[in-house]
């Protein structure tokens, strides 16, 4: 096996261990700074690995060993180009474009928060809560925290996409892993009580009150209202209707490309089920660090085969 494939295998194992470590640390609700640092470092390593010049000149002395060495280098370059080509997929570019808009919208809501009175219709009669939650000062630590989280998820997807070795959508093993994801998701849903969705379609609340303020907001609610907290609701309060539904638009290209390129109908079905499950966890379940870390890990798993999806595998 050429050294390129050994490096790829080792790199992929490191990627998976890091993804696992990320989900564990997110579950424990700590170490986001360290994780961001680790993913940044790993991203640079991967960038260094991929950023070879596209073409090299022929060696001047055309002896047999130099020709063989040149040929081997060209072979490696062909594989690396294949990895980079995966990043040039239109759906991936759309995904990052929408993702950037989503993050910028969140930042805009944080720097210029909306009038909190707009969301009062849902929690009628609790006006005093809304007045005091509207903090004047911006908490830059929380902004940095959110940014780090988005950097980690983006790097996970970007790095995962560049591994061409694994062909997930054509093996029974990965079909079983999808089943496992769905099983865990169903268990999580069944242990969480469903939440009210009356307020989700309040179109007057377009802009949110900014990142990190939901924590204070939910703390100030009476105890019987605490069960209202879900991932969707968190985004809804923080980034408004645009941010809450905007995240689904960000992930729409993933759904399209995976369904289009899955080799068999069973895999198409499993992918749709898994993405629907992520949606259900976000929309109907209580927000919890377990759910958040589970979602991040599933996304990393999906990213590792997302553009390839069983078509462009490089044979070792």
């Amino acid at each position, binding site marked *: 096996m050429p050294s390129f494939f050994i490096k790829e295998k080792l790199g992929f194992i490191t990627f998976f261990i890091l993804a696992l470590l990320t989900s564990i640390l997110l579950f424990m609700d700590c170490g986001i700074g360290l994780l961001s640092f680790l993913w940044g470092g790993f991203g640079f390593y991967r960038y260094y690995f991929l950023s070879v010049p596209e073409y090299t000149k022929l060696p001047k002395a055309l002896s047999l060993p130099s020709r063989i060495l040149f040929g081997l280098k060209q072979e490696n370059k062909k594989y690396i180009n294949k990895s980079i080509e995966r990043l*040039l997929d239109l759906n991936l570019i759309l995904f990052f474009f929408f993702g950037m808009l989503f993050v910028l919208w969140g930042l805009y809501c944080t720097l210029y928060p909306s009038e909190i009175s707009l969301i009062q219709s849902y929690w009628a009669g609790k006006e005093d809560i809304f007045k005091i939650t509207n903090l004047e000062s911006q908490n830059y630590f929380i902004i940095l925290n959110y940014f780090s989280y988005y950097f980690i998820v983006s790097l996970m997807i970007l790095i995962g996409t560049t591994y061409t070795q694994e062909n997930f959508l054509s093996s029974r093993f990965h079909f079983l892993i999808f089943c496992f994801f769905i099983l865990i998701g169903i268990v999580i849903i069944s242990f969480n009580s469903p939440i009210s969705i009356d307020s989700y379609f309040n179109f007057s609340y377009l802009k949110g009150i900014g990142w990190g303020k939901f924590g204070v907001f939910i703390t100030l609610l009476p105890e019987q209202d605490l069960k209202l907290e879900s991932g969707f609701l968190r985004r809804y309060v923080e980034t408004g209707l645009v941010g809450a539904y905007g995240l689904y638009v960000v992930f729409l290209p993933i759904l399209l490309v995976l369904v289009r390129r899955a080799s068999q109908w069973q895999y198409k079905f499993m992918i749709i089920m898994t993405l629907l499950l992520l949606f259900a966890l976000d929309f109907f379940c209580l927000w919890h660090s377990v759910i958040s870390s589970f979602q991040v890990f599933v996304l990393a798993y999906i990213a590792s085969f997302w553009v390839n999806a069983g078509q462009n595998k490089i044979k070792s």
Partner: protein
Amino acid sequence: MSFRLYQICRKFILLVFCTLSFCGLVSGLLLSLVQSPETEASRYLLLADQNQEQAIHLTLTALSYAPYDEEIWLKFKNLKRKNLSLTAVKTDLNKSQNLARSDLK
């Protein structure tokens, strides 16, 4: 895709890759260097103790760093209760003063 466009896209996506990695490194480093949220929350609590006028606002800021800290939450509740009773006393006082003024007239 034409060759020229391909080259531009390739350079662009590698630039995005590099930028994201750099941002991840820097934000991770900054997060590790700045004070932990708990330390910041206790700093704001101390400020709230020293500045009674701004106590509610400062305690809320502390809550934004440690939203699930029960101790801060209890303190905030007490402060709010005190503030409400003070407002009620002020309102009563205003009402009685107004009544007294109208009686005098």
